[in-house]
């Protein structure tokens, strides 16, 4: 049971992730549609975990990871990546993301990653 912030520019993807998380007993405390909003909401809400899309307008997911980790070095962030974004996922991991899941999402993979990150 964790408080989670979901960042994705597509409302549909946010809904999908939210469904998965809520179904497994987690609470989605906020939704961000770009990296800038994600960083702002993180500061406001102090969630236990963030799921972060990589490609987003304005500030992308990787930059958002850097900003959030600068505010909170303990921040737990899971990247949501499309196939073929390996280089960017590597950047995100280097920037401090804990794990990644690849779209299309499989519920058990998402939950598995969330639970591992929360340990």
């Amino acid at each position, binding site marked *: 049971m964790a408080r989670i912030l979901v960042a994705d520019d597509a409302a549909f993807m946010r809904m999908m992730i939210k469904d998965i998380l809520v179904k497994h007993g987690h609470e989605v405390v906020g939704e961000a549609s770009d990296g800038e909003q994600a960083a702002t909401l993180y500061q406001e809400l102090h969630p236990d975990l963030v799921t972060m899309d990589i490609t987003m307008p304005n500030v992308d997911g990787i930059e958002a990871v850097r900003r959030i980790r600068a505010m909170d070095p303990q921040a737990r962030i899971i990247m949501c990546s499309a196939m073929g974004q*390996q*280089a960017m996922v590597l950047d995100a991991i280097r920037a401090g993301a804990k794990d990644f899941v690849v779209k299309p999402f499989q519920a058990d993979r998402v939950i598995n*990653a969330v639970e591992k990150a929360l340990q």
Partner: protein
Amino acid sequence: MNREYLDAFLAESTENVEKLEDGCLELERQGPEANLVAELFRAAHTLKGMSATMGFSRLAELTHRVEDVFGLWRDHPESFQPEQVDILFQAIDRMRVHLEAISTSGSEPDLKDDDVMASLQTAFQAREPLHPSQKNGLEEDRARYATEAERQGKVAYRLHIQLTSDCMMPAVRLAMVYQTLKDAADIAAAEPTEDAVWAGDVQTTEAYVVVYLERDEIERIQEKVLDITDVARCDAERWVASRGSASQQDSRGKFASQETRSQSMSTTPAESAARPGSNDSRPDRSIRVSVRRMDALLNTMSEMVIAKTRLDTIAAASNDPALREAVERLDRLTKDLQDEVMQLRMAPVESVFHRYPRMMRDLERKLNREFDFVMTGLETEMDRIVLEEMGEVIVHLLRNAVDHGLEPPEVREQQGKSRRGTIRLSAYASGGHIYIEVADDGAGIDRARVLQSAITKGVITPEAGASMSDEAVYELLFQSGFSTAKEVSDISGRGVGLDAVRDKVESLGGKIRIDTELGRGTTFVIELPLTLAILPALLVSVRGQTFAIPTANVDEVVRLREADVRYVQNESVYPSGDRIVPIIDVAEWLGLGVRRWVFPQTAVVCRNGEQKFVMVVDRVLDELEIVNKPLGRYLEGVRGFSGATILGDGKVSLILDVRSIGQSA
């Protein structure tokens, strides 16, 4: 050479050669998939290491070349060409030759492998020279790392990390692994390198890392690594600076030096066990036992069953309740023990079937056929000895299926069938029997051709042929010296014919029949008893002698009334169900004399396949489990008996062979 080492070496090497063979078949199907190639590489590497340790330098050299090939495919999968696998098969065959020679003589055979080496060289020339030394899990610098760690007052471990095969973005996972390792230890070396991983420049799902630890807390580190998503295995091997010789650098497995401590951990045993060729983490551990000892155990068990039966008789005759109770308990325990021992005798058919895919592949090429070979029911267990005896029979039927069953691809196309045929080998258990089926979707058996051939050979007359049922016609195929193949090919003509197949099956107490449909295919169905050693039987008395009839052959026990017996052409018959079956007086048949029947006369309705007859006996004594003992060589030719058993009172009783008695009816 120490025989114990040699045996261990041979057993393990054979396993690895089998792994190579299975893996190469897999390679042909799915190409150089990373995990598969890694597994093959390891198998070759292990073989090389063991052979070198044992001083078999030629075998070591050969396996070394093969290892290079897998190393090449691992690093450059794009260079893979399916034809190259053929050459690997040649090399694998040569390894077997080496191992067989080593097994017989205990020393390395004087074999020149130049031909195979040359083939390997030619096929992989494009990439020569290979640099496998950079790619064998950092082994070659083992001593250096171990010494360096010691100098720093640390301990060195070589970690072997394996990601799951369906892992997405393996480079990222490996990056996460390296990051985790870095938090807890110094990374002295890594393969692939850290730079390559962070650049996303790797496709492999496997990595080797040498780490130096301040304290020996390798298990904690392994756990952390295993906690990363998609990490399937993380094996650690402690590297200790070797004192004196460097000869142990390449040793692993059973031949690992005592200074090497291996620790294996796996997140998902089921998953890694499910991977072909991986047997590191099977849930059930097993030991090797020689067949001779197994047989000795079984034999003692059989004798014990006899002794127990005798005790049963004594207890039944006495009025001592305590004795009876003790015997009853002993009875149950003996049964349990017997089940266990019988279980030991059982082996999954896979242990024999596993060599067929390779053989079928070779046949496919040699005979220019195209087909898929499908095996099902590999886990089906049956009597080890029956299974081994069946090996050759199945080989023959499979060869037949390829050679005579399946049409050439062009012919199939002309007939509107798919170009590729299917040959299916299946095993399953049903109703106290094991069934093995060899099925093809080929031309089927042509009744007219079989008849024609039989008539030409004078086996039957044209008139008889016209009225024969299909079953009876196919039965002709099993007669000795009968073959419809136009010429004897070097494939099916080798060794035995269908008559030998049937003899073998029947000598094991089994039956074989053919289902076939012209143009649609042929299926050989073999029915075998679950076990040979102990069988339920009916004891009957004939002229004061006791005989056993296997219950499998008994339909029912009847009391013949005078009105039941009819006469057809002076032969007595009995209406059983909707059939009229012949009556045989077993006393007469056995030459124990003729006598009058006393109605109601006791008789046993016997059955063997489709064949059915009534066997007149004096009395039915008992139904019990008997131990089947072979008759021995000088009684082998005697018709009417399939074996002997020792009864509870110590007397010998012959087991009646229902088949041969029925055939005379």
